[in-house]
């Protein structure tokens, strides 16, 4: 035993190095959301394409739906957009957009140009609903279940991997 004592500092060092290496692999931009497992915040917003018609949270109770936060000024949104368009064609779940801090005309022009994957987009001009959803980096994507509970949140562009490994299994689990 005594002869192995000299290894102690090396073991301590290895432990520390492993811990730091694990820390390096994490993305500090991904802040765990306290909203997972909690009811989606209540909102009443007008539709992006129709200022007279509004949609509120409770209108969507009873179905599993996807909320995608986007804006015409958001460059990363373009990255995920083709994937969303493709996903919405499959009609797995309704996809709602939250048009975050945008101008109506800019948002509509953007959808006309790149395609519209949304059943409807909610117009959140001052970003208050965005704050309620804890939005800090557009695009963000939420999955909300039939009881109106937030089950999943993804920050940044949705990739094929995220769709295949996180979102689709969750939707299956939620019986969609």
């Amino acid at each position: 035993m005594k002869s192995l004592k000299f290894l102690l500092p090396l073991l301590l060092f290895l432990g520390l190095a492993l811990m730091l290496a694990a820390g390096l692999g994490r993305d500090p931009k991904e802040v765990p959301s306290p909203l997972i497992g909690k009811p989606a915040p209540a909102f009443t917003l007008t539709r992006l394409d129709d200022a007279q018609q509004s949609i509120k949270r409770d209108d969507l109770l009873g179905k599993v739906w996807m909320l995608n936060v986007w804006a015409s000024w958001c460059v990363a949104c373009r990255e995920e957009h083709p994937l969303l368009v493709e996903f919405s064609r499959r009609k797995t779940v309704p996809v709602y957009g939250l048009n975050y801090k945008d101008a109506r005309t800019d948002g509509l022009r953007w959808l006309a140009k790149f395609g519209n994957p949304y059943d409807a987009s909610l117009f959140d001009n001052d970003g208050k609903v965005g704050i309620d959803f804890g939005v800090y980096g557009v695009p963000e994507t939420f999955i909300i279940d039939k009881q109106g509970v937030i089950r999943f949140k993804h920050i940044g562009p949705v990739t094929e991997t995220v769709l295949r490994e996180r979102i689709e299994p969750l939707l299956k689990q939620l019986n969609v």
Partner: protein
Amino acid sequence: MSDVLRRWMAAVLAAAALCAGAVAAEAPTVADDPVLEAKVMAIAAELRCLVCQNQTIADSSAGLAVDLRNQVRDMLRQGQDRKQIVAYMTDRYGDFVLYRPPLKESTALLWFGPAALLLGGLAVLVWVLRRRNRLAPDQFELDESDSLPPRP
């Protein structure tokens, strides 16, 4: 003035004008009441901006930081206190927004880790010094000065 130089000057002036415009657009809204504004800033200085993670929302001019400062201001105007505002922020963004994280199980290492390391280090130091104290003199190597040949 040469043509090239003139063109350069024009470009620099245009860039300066653009920058001035950008700064003007980002100028934060402030309350007229300096007491209220001081309160807003005191609370904002404790909240982390999530867009530029190592700044407080008091320091940052990111869009979200401006919005959150406005939110703090509105809530103070409605008569809510610091505790309610902090709760509002952590409900949405988690403990991560706090520069002074609350003491709980998941943050115990953060709070007590440094003190534990310090105490551990001191304990090892005391142990080594005491052991060395008990050693006989012939267990030490000679100091350099002891082994030097006598001066001529």
